[in-house]
């Protein structure tokens, strides 16, 4: 027998050098199971396949398709749904952490009734029956006086119509959203122009992107699906991306060029780019003349005023850069732009949004592969019968504010001022997934003050799963379910393929929490137990699943596939193809990537659709009094979803209220008069947080828990601060003291503070109250996990010192317009100091009203509209604030 040579470790390792090829061809029967992209997962301990429940993520509002993996009826992992055409199997870090909402020890699990003063933190646990009885009694009283004194304000509403149904059942028109602190001026800038309120840039197939103030890789709308496409466009398609932003965000850092602009001036840059394109005759004349309501000549004439030199003076972007970028953008095909929400969150955000949008319009990049596309979505029917619309209008609601008539998504952030001045009388105030005491301008100085005042808000009901800053002020808390325990219908235009999806409970809700539709049903049943008041008939459903069947069981196509049962199994419909694990793209049966449909506005109307239709002299096709399309070059197209089926470069409705109907830009008046030592405060989000509801999530809080203020190196030198030093940031309504982060990555005239930090409620992790040791028994958590909290800095929240100002057109909060003075903190300043004043906020609110179409500064801001006759031209009724 041959004896084996004695081998030492070194000799062994030498042998390994020769084994590479052999090893490569050796059979491999084992594969790490987590590498499979099949919507499956196994326990690493037991090897047992985990139960997979497809859902739609609702950590944030992108609505990605997800799969919850359960072991022992507990979610152990969340992953992207590989069958979801937009998400393609990938979630962001927030989406991966969503289970901590459900299992958070600070979650509210029982109905609670306040026993101390508002906000004191003293509660009594009550039964659902006690809670419902009390709420119903208060509603009864309010109904006797005026249904509109029942106010419901919501933050995130993905109930698919339940909140409207509730308020309509009660006959109240006082339903208020949150959109004005979000993107309403973007919506209002876009809707009259082309129909929908958002765009879908085809990043994956484009060659050139102008990105105005969006941090698409981290935080903007649809950032998870879109950032995947941005990466593809960059890698597979060699696209160029140019970002205009006051801050070097991660998207700006990823871009080929970051061009810092003076805060609030992107609109001027966009107009100047348009000027160069038109001056150089690089526009798509055919598209403009065929598909818009202006001619190329009109447009050229209008844009003459917006020279690059004019824009340079305003924005600080060199005229030569504007010239170069304009030519690059117009001569590179296809190209697109993206805005979110930098341009829109200013005093005249709607003008800015429209100015940006004109660039793909004038270059004909609309609805083309690689261009600026219309959003794709799907809808679902409502359960029948539906309650009628309320008989009487409220002073303001989610679509209406008398002083902001073009703000079709409401001006919600002005609500506290109207409650205080009596224009919005409140008897019962409901809140759902909202936290304006933290998220809105003025924060606790404004919302906190009004909601704490029992004379202004006599009865306050919060429907919430967590003790946010607002819920902490409630009289009754009805425990809502976090998103993993709810039924909800979904559709979101987050890629070029429309889809329908569901959220379904992954397990029974914890404690006694009830999902919103059940909770509202129970309130109505309490009010109308036998149906004699005519309310109950709108709420005759057994449970959440039963309600979903009404939405989904009769949708053509889905019905044949199995209706709700299909969605319960797959989470999304349709399934466009299979996820290719090699490329991460959705492919068809032949292995080719699926293709989107483009040119939606050019879809021709069928003979059947045209039967009985009338075509007017402008080509507008109407049927039964409704515009259904537009005739162009002898063909009948569906066109755009506007009343004239065209893109409206000129928005005549705006002129009615004295606003410029054509693309324009207005400087923020108070920016023009800024002193040398003043700066503009902007805020931003990080990739691991959302506005207010994520600070309690362990994995995310560990990654990001504090928020120093970004200050430019040059500016910091002038005021004598370095990174880590305390600075005092003072606006006209208050001041805060925070830490400085000195960086080249921000415009010298801007200071940027990320939001989602500095909570004073929202549980132990968000507040770090244990670390403060006051008082130890309340919030003084000592659970073992808390020992892992190695940080003691929870950050400083800036919203208290931001005044509430609304865009007079779109109604948006002018988040990025606050002028502040930044100085090195004084000896009496403490980290975390935040001081703001209600009276000064009221003054700022009144000042803001002067820019409304009824205000005295409106005309001054619009000399070009000298021919406007004034508010009477729009049939103004004098309804105003009496503060």
């Amino acid at each position, binding site marked *: 027998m041959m004896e084996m040579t004695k081998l030492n470790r070194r000799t062994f390792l030498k042998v390994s050098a020769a084994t590479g090829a052999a090893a490569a061809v050796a059979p491999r029967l084992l594969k790490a199971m987590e590498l499979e992209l099949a919507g499956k997962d196994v326990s690493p301990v037991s090897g047992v396949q985990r139960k997979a429940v497809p859902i739609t993520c609702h950590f944030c509002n992108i609505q990605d398709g997800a799969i919850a993996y359960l072991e022992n009826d507990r979610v152990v992992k969340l992953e992207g749904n590989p069958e979801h055409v937009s998400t393609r199997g990938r979630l962001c870090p927030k989406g991966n952490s969503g289970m*901590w909402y459900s*299992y958070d*020890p600070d979650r509210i699990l029982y109905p609670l009734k306040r026993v101390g003063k508002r906000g004191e933190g003293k*509660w*009594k646990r009550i039964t659902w029956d006690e809670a419902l009885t009390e709420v119903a009694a208060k509603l009864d009283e309010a109904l006797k006086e005026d249904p509109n004194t029942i106010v419901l304000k919501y933050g995130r509403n993905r109930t698919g119509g339940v909140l409207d149904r509730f308020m309509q059942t009660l006959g109240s028109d006082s339903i208020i959203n949150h959109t004005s602190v979000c993107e309403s001026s973007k919506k209002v800038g876009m809707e009259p122009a082309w129909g929908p309120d958002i765009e879908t840039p085809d990043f994956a197939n484009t060659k050139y992107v102008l990105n105005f103030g969006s941090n698409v890789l981290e935080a903007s709308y649809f950032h998870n699906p879109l950032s995947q496409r941005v990466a593809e466009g960059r890698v597979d398609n060699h696209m160029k991306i140019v970002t205009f932003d006051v801050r070097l965000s991660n998207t700006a850092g990823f871009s080929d060029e970051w061009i810092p602009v003076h805060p609030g001036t992107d609109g001027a840059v966009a107009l100047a780019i348009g000027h160069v394109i038109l001056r150089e005759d690089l526009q798509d004349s055919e598209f403009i003349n065929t598909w818009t309501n202006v001619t190329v000549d009109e447009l050229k004439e209008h844009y003459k005023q917006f020279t690059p030199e004019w824009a340079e003076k305003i924005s600080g972007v060199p005229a030569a850069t504007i010239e170069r970028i304009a030519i690059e953008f117009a001569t590179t095909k296809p190209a697109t732009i993206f805005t979110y929400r930098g341009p829109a969150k200013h005093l005249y955000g709607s003008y800015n949004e429209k100015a940006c949008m004109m660039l793909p319009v004038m270059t004909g990049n609309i609805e083309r592969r690689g261009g600026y596309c219309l959003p794709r979505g799907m809808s679902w029917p409502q359960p029948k019968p539906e309650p009628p619309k309320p008989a009487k209008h409220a002073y303001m609601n989610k679509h209406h504010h008398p002083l902001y008539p073009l703000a079709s998504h409401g001006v919600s952030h002005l609500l506290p001022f109207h409650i205080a001045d009596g224009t919005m009388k409140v008897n019962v105030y409901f809140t759902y997934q909202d936290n304006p005491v933290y998220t809105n301008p003025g924060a606790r100085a404004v919302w906190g003050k009004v909601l704490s005042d029992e004379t202004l808000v006599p009865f306050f009901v919060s429907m919430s799963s*967590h003790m946010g800053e607002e819920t902490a002020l409630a009289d009754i808390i009805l425990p809502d379910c976090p998103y993993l325990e709810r039924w909800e219908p979904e559709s979101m235009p987050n890629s070029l393929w429309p889809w329908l999806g569901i959220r379904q409970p992954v397990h029974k809700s914890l404690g006694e929490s009830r999902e919103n539709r059940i909770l509202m049903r129970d309130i109505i049943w309490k009010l109308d137990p036998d149906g004699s008041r005519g309310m109950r008939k709108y709420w005759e459903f057994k449970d959440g699943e039963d309600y979903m069947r009404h939405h989904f069981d009769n949708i053509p196509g889905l019905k044949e596939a199995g209706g709700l049962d299909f969605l319960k199994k797959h989470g999304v419909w349709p399934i466009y193809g299979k996820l290719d694990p090699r490329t991460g793209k959705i492919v068809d049966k032949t292995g080719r990537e699926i293709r989107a449909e483009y040119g939606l506005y050019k879809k021709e109307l069928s003979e059947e659709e045209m039967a009985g239709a009338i075509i007017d002299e402008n080509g507008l096709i109407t049927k039964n009094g409704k515009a259904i399309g537009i005739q162009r070059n002898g063909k009948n197209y569906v066109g755009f979803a506007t009343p004239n089926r065209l893109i409206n470069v000129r928005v005549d409705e705006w002129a009615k209220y004295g606003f410029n109907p054509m693309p324009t830009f207005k400087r923020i008046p108070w920016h023009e008069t800024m002193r040398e030592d003043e700066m503009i405060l902007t805020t931003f989000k990080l990739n691991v947080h959302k506005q207010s509801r994520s600070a309690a999530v362990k994995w995310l809080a560990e990654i990001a828990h504090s928020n120093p203020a970004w200050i430019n190196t040059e500016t910091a030198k002038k005021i004598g601060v370095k990174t880590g030093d305390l600075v005092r940031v003072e606006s006209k309504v208050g001041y805060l003291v925070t830490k400085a982060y000195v960086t080249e990555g921000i415009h010298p005239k801007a200071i940027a503070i990320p939001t989602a930090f500095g909570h004073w409620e929202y549980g132990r992790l968000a507040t770090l109250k244990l670390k403060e040791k006051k008082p130890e*028994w309340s919030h003084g958590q000592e659970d073992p996990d808390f020992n892992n909290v190695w940080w003691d800095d929870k950050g400083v929240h800036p919203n208290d010192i931001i005044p509430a100002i609304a865009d007079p057109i779109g109604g948006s909060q002018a988040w990025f317009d606050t002028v502040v003075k930044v100085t090195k903190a004084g000896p009496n300043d403490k980290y975390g100091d935040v001081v703001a004043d209600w009276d000064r906020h009221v003054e700022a609110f009144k000042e803001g009203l002067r820019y409304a179409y009824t205000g005295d500064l409106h005309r001054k801001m619009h000399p070009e509209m000298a021919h406007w006759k004034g508010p009477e031209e729009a049939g103004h009724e004098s309804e105003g604030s009496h503060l």
Partner: protein
Amino acid sequence: MKTSQIEGKKSGISQPTAIPEVAAGMAAECGARALLYRLLSAVFVEEASAEFLSAMRTPEMLEQLAEVGIGFDADFTAAPLAELVDTLAVEYASLFAASGGFPPVESVRLYGRYRHEPNFEVMQTYQRLGFVLQPGRHEVFADQLGVELMFIAELLERQAEALAKGDLIASRKLEKEIKRFWSRHLGRWVRGYARLIERAAMHSFYREMARFLRGFAEEEIAALGLHIEDADGARLEVPKAEVQEAADPQKPGCTSDAAPPGRQGIRRLQDLRLPSVPD
């Protein structure tokens, strides 16, 4: 009133073989222990009812508790009943049921979140031994302190029943289950947690009942011959500053806190004979 959340199905344990007097003594002890478990369960499982508080405030009960070093302040002994019910309901919510409190739930104490391993493990144990969890006035987790204590009470009652029948095999089996449950669950968290509540409670009722729970747990662990590490995150050692404060003779009812945790002031289990408590 509904406070009992665990409902037993018929136990299949039988075969009586025992010396009657010994078994009867053991059965009596099991019965007494079961009552204590029931008592503590009632304190922590939900807000105390007027009936329960009345029973707790009988002179006999107060005297017995005083004998083992449990002394309530006037906030418990002198408050009008209706007011006491209300005050304690608020205290209960602050400590145990509202956001920002100290959920008396094993998953939270040992894993920092609801519905984790202990919840499923205890559920399986309940099922295996023929119990189902029913909602009381409120829904509670299977690994809620009150439910875990209630479970032992049920087992002890079964054990007492078995012993009364002279069935030592069944009794031993049940004792094993009790030991196992203490080793795997209660013993791992209840002492540290009780210490935390002693410090956190504003009202003497919960402060003293938490002390009682701690002492009782230590006695049970010793009596069962177990050595279990307290894995709860609450500090095991009371900081000096607090010791001095707690030892203040001006503060009635707190004196025994100055002693090393768990011994002084708490009498051995067999010294306690409490009247039955309505459930």
